């Protein structure tokens, strides 16, 4: 796989506070990499370093295998922290400025304003926009020139539910086009819904890194009950399909092993002569899992 971004032992301090501490990871082409972490865990600092705004104290990073520079940044659509535009200029003029920096034809401005539903406000001053609309404009400028790589910092910030759904749709359609996307977020749900890979940050350190389906959703829990729960439990313990079996009230809860299909459990116990009165697969609360990871 082609490496789009690779980071080696990156550190950044604000005075004595280590905002990013010895961070290393790589992002491969075509993946959606989520940087997940609570507030103040170093997500934005990491993005600010890789987009050229902050200089790292130590460590290095490469874009497209090259030493980072302005020509690399022109090929990346980035939204870092908050939308930054000239308040007194119209949306169109603000986008013109971005287009000229990125060497993108001005014709593309209408396309991206259309995607983000801002065409009607094309000639409004930036400072007349609501927070959500400012965020949409920032997204529009990210999409300008159809870049191969998108860097998004809390892209759903300030958006209404409809806006959040639209952002998700945009990210998914960019992903479908084979784009590489790096998203920082503190919302687990957002990362889980759109990312293929995730890195979890705490106090500037990477504490977990891997595929979303392995890292965040391995522990599915199954809740079952039958006529005779005790016997069912004994049978299941021998099956090798489940672990952590527990009998609670009138149900049995267990953790399904990652590769197990819940249908197999049903088939197995039916074969043993049980009739399940309940079989429910639950995903553990992602928040609780996230908290477990960052604790």
């Amino acid at each position, binding site marked *: 796989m082609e490496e789009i971004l690779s980071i080696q032992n990156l550190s950044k301090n604000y005075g004595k506070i280590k905002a990013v501490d010895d961070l290393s990871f790589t992002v491969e082409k075509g993946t959606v990499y989520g940087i997940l972490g609570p507030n103040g865990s170093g997500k934005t600092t990491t993005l600010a370093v890789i*987009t*050229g*705004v*902050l*200089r790292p104290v130590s460590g290095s990073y490469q874009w497209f295998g090259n030493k980072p*520079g*302005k*020509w690399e*940044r*022109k*090929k990346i659509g*980035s939204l*870092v922290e*908050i939308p*930054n*535009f*000239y*308040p*007194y*200029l119209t949306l169109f*003029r603000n986008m*013109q*400025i*971005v287009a*000229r*920096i*990125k*060497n993108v034809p001005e014709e593309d401005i209408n396309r991206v304003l259309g995607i983000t539903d801002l065409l009607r406000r094309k000639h409004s001053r930036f400072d007349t926009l609501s927070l959500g609309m400012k965020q949409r404009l920032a997204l529009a*400028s990210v999409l300008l020139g159809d870049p191969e790589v998108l860097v998004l910092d809390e892209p759903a910030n300030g958006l209404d539910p409809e806006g959040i759904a639209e952002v998700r749709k945009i990210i998914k359609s960019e992903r479908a086009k084979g784009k590489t996307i790096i998203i920082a977020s503190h919302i687990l749900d957002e990362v889980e819904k759109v990312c293929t890979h995730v890195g979890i940050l705490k106090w500037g350190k990477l504490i977990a890194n891997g595929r979303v389906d392995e890292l965040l959703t391995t522990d599915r829990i199954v809740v079952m009950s039958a006529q005779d729960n005790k016997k069912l439990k004994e049978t299941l313990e021998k099956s090798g399909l489940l672990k952590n079996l527990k009998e609670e009230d009138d149900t049995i809860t267990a953790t399904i092993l990652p590769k197990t299909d819940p249908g197999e459990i049903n088939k197995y116990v039916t074969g043993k002569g049980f009739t399940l009165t309940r079989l429910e697969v639950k995903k553990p609360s992602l928040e609780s899992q996230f908290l477990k990871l960052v604790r």
Partner: protein
Amino acid sequence: MKNLLKNELTKTLNYSSFKVIMTLHFMLFILVIIVASRIDIAVPGFSMRNLFRFPDVWATFAWIASWFNMLLAIMIIVLVGNEFSFHTFRQQVINGLSIEDLIIGKGIVIFFIALYGVLLVFLSGAVSGIIFSHDFEFADLFSKSYLLAVYFIQAVGYMIIGMLIAVIFRNNSLSIIMFLLYFIFIEPIIRKFFSPEVRQFFPVKIISHLTPPPEVLTIASKKTIEGAAGGSNFDFEAIGLMPHQLPLLTTLLVAAGFISLFVFLIFQVMRRRDL
């Protein structure tokens, strides 16, 4: 480079404070020369009218224009300070400019504002010369027009000092206050600790002396002062009543040196600090 220029034009020409300050600059300058051209103080041996005739008009108008250089410098402080407060320097780097591009962009703005100043002096000087001169001996028309180039360097110098202060303080009100304090109090006070020979080499002193008052005026005022003091041999230059007159070329070279130093410092400050 072309896109850099276009972006600076979009940002600057659509900014209402820019339009207001530049209009103010234009109107103040025109107003002063109109008022000045109507004053006719009887100075023995000289006519005030000479100041508005070729070739003295270039010296007069460059000198008058220099009164308003502070306004141009404050304009640059505001334009640079805005980029920090809007976080747009930051955003432009994210989008694909280098730190050097940011500085060059503002350099382009400084160049064009100084060029506007020169054109203003040139056109108004030409009009005044045509109105007030009696005879148009061509050789003499432009003999002092090199002062336009000197004025250009002076205007650039003021604006570069403004930009240096703006990239250090990154805050409009603080930068403007520091700029004014430096010009009015800080440097003059520091100068007092040095000998008169050294004093004249301070940056503000040197840059503001690029366009000295027209000779006619200084000689006339020297005469007035000397007349009042009873013709003593008192050194008026030493006590600050009269400006020191370093040779123009020396002043120009030292000023250019300071400007280069400040440009170097702007690059250093911008490169060393996070945006």
